């Protein structure tokens, strides 16, 4: 793999995983990175097959509350070039890359820890009434700081090739990757819990429970269950309107 290809790959990963633009939220997905990587390495077919295969694993990946169960982006940036260059079959490439994706969540956690510093910086700028400073703290600095975090792992993995990745992954004990898989299954809970906290009303928790167990018992899809959710919320709203109103009227006396 040429250095230029490795650099391009690192940059692509940096852009996609940082969601430089909210509409890019899908860019880190293997199926979206696949055609780009296919272009860089000149083998579209292998890229697409590997990307699509990898994508299936992440099709239900959801990152509420800024919380990634796994880093699909790094998995894609490892697996696809590997399949193209080392002639490894897509399935094997995927099986190597998925654990890397689990490790990848650490990068995001480091990033969000560092970013905490920029909030405090912004506090200072705000104190000074320095709007430009606030903007720099919100965009430029985080992007720059995250560059080495995002760029280097992919860059080096590309340079040293599948063998290095394989050696690295072999060094990781089995229980660690298994543990990370478990963590990947649990982490979405953190995002959902955070959203529950921000919704704020304890008295709505029965709705959470209803939503949860309707799905748990019936296996309804999210879209299916959301139809009923919409109706329930609407009815709750309108029935409470009546109550609220009369309360208001009653209270105003």
């Amino acid at each position, binding site marked *: 793999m040429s250095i230029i290809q490795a650099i391009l790959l690192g940059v692509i990963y940096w852009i996609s995983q940082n969601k430089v633009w909210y509409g890019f939220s899908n860019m880190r997905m293997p199926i979206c990175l696949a*055609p780009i990587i296919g272009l860089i390495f000149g083998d579209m077919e292998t890229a697409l097959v590997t990307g699509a295969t990898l994508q299936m694993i992440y099709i239900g990946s959801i990152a509420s509350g800024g919380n990634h169960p796994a880093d699909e982006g790094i998995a894609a940036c490892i697996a696809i070039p590997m399949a193209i260059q080392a002639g490894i079959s897509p399935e094997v490439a995927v099986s190597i890359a998925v654990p890397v994706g689990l490790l990848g969540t650490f990068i995001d956690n480091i990033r969000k820890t560092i970013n905490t510093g920029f909030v405090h910086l912004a506090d200072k700028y705000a104190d000074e009434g320095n709007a430009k400073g606030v*903007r720099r*703290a919100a965009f430029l600095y985080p992007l720059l700081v995250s560059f080495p975090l995002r760029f280097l792992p992919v860059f080096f993995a590309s340079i040293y090739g599948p063998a290095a990745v394989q050696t690295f992954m072999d060094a990781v004990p089995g229980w660690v990757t298994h543990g990370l898989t478990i963590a990947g299954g649990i982490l979405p809970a*953190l995002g959902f819990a955070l959203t529950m906290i921000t*919704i704020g009303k304890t008295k709505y928790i029965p709705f959470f429970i209803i939503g949860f167990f309707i799905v*748990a018992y019936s296996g309804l899809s999210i879209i299916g269950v959301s139809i009923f959710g919409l109706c329930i*919320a609407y009815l709750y709203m309108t029935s409470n309107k009546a109550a609220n109103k009369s309360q208001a009227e009653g209270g105003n006396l």
Partner: protein
Amino acid sequence: MDQVTKNNQEKITKRDITISWIRWHAYAEVSANFERLQALAFCASMTGILEKLYKKKEDLSRALKKHLTMFNTQANWGSVINGITIALEEKASQETENKEESEELITGIKTGLMGPIAGIGDSLDFGTIRPILMGISIPFALKGSVFAAFVPLVGQILYMAIVGLFMIHKGYSTGKESITSLLSSGKIQQIISGAGVLGMFMMGALSATFISLSTPLVISTEGANPIEIQSMLDGIVPNLLPFAVVFAIYLYLKKTGANYLKVVGIVLAVSLLGAAIGLF
């Protein structure tokens, strides 16, 4: 003197609002952090507006600080909150009394809406539309269609531009025209409550769908049939462990005041430990 302040103030244009949206969409995830999540992004996306509204340094400073409090939502549908906030700030900046009251109002509406919209937006954009889109494009991509592989990305960019721009402008116009009547009629409160119910409901649905945890534990006394703990749990209630996990985290966050990073650490530690000792 009030007069002077007022005259000094520039009008918010459509362009300002669009710029605010562009910033919001660019910053939303870039500065995500464990302490206040999207607070910095929200504040920074408001800077252009606030600079126009508050000509005095101390006013601007005060306004900026106000928007640096904890914020998190789903950025796409959440654009509506930016729109409403712009309208409210515009109105507040013209007031000479009751400043505190309108500041409280702004924060109240922001925090009232951010959660519900996060719940709804995540369900819709990431829980529903994304899997459908990918489910459609994967088989084509497997057959080698480059076009199909580009659909999820390009589709999302366009979709989010349309929704986001619509929502921020809609939020602004709603806020500007009818916020007073909305507030006095309790309608905003009602919308927040309806959205909250839906958001909470969807969080339940997403939790049951996307959290996975089970145990391979087996109890085997000599002689007796081995008993699988997981199938025992399933016999009681399906998805019991995921349910327990999300509630444990919820209660912990609620008690400790959103110590987010710590939870990440605990989850990792427990997962690794559990994996090591064969609990999970």
